[in-house]
């Protein structure tokens, strides 16, 4: 990175340096470290999945229908955040904000389902302290849910900014970054869905 900075001037002369691109790359690096965080949580869950301390296991309590619905909700929201990007590239501020709001609404739906699932699990006697299995389960699924929550707050902030300032190079970069982040959350969820839920009920 220091190399990139020291050549800043040189590149500028050729019109190649692009601070926006650099900032997007910085965000990309954050997401890649986030991959490593999730890798640790997945590894923990896989290793501990048999340690149920004679308590309930996932297959007893998981209601797969709700999980299927939330999977499709998140998948659709990943698609709508892409549509928002297309509207932005057309320069259509209203369309951009519309699809971002749809994305946020779907994200809230996903979060609502996840919270009601957690409440259901705790009522059935599977809390984070019940066994190693449930500790790993709530940590992994909860960390993903936390990421979704941050994403929702973030996209709402950007909607407000867009309404106020319109599509500028700055807001454009922010929309690009949140859209990447949102796709990333969907990718993580695919693996949560596969490894935590489908492999549990099979």
């Amino acid at each position, binding site marked *: 990175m220091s190399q990139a900075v020291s050549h800043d001037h040189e590149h500028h002369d050729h*019109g*190649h340096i*692009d601070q*926006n*691109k650099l900032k997007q*790359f910085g965000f*990309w*690096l954050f997401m*890649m*470290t986030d*991959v*490593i965080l*999730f*890798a*640790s949580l*997945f*590894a*923990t869950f*896989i*290793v501990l999945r048999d340690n149920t301390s004679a308590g309930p296991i996932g297959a007893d309590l998981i209601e*797969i229908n709700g999980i*299927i619905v939330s*999977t*499709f909700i998140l*998948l*659709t929201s*990943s*698609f709508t955040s*892409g*549509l928002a*990007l*297309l509207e932005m*590239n057309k320069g259509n501020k209203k369309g951009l904000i519309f699809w971002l709001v749809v994305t946020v609404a779907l994200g809230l739906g996903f979060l609502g389902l996840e919270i009601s699932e957690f409440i259901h699990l705790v009522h059935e006697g599977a809390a984070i302290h019940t066994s190693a299995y449930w500790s790993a389960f709530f940590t992994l699924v909860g960390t993903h849910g936390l990421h979704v929550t941050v994403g929702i707050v973030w996209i709402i902030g950007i909607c407000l900014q867009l309404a106020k300032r319109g599509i500028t*190079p700055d807001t*454009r970069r922010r929309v*690009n970054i949140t859209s*990447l982040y949102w*796709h*990333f959350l*969907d*990718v993580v969820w*695919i*693996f949560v*869905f*596969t*490894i935590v839920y*489908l*492999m549990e*009920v*099979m």
Partner: protein
Amino acid sequence: MASQHHEEHAHGSLKQYVLGFVLSIILTIIPLVVVLNDMFNTTTTMVVLLASAVAQLLVQLFFFMHIRDEKGPKYNMVALVFAGLMLLTIVIGSIFVMANNVLIQ
């Protein structure tokens, strides 16, 4: 502004997004059908599940995140490959070590 111009190129078309969305839906339905109908034995089911998940990861990377569109040196690809390597090391390494700890137990 030059940067805006080339960003416009960098973000795919409606066709790409729709195709990616349809592929993702198919790749979500395949494992669901396999699991809910108990179609195969455990090993085959695991392979189908993981293959669908990885395929969907690739669909999202190429159709939604436009991983290939980066101009110039592909630093994002380098970071991605590194993260993938770390991920496989952590997950497979943990499974391997914990599956071979009979002596301690």
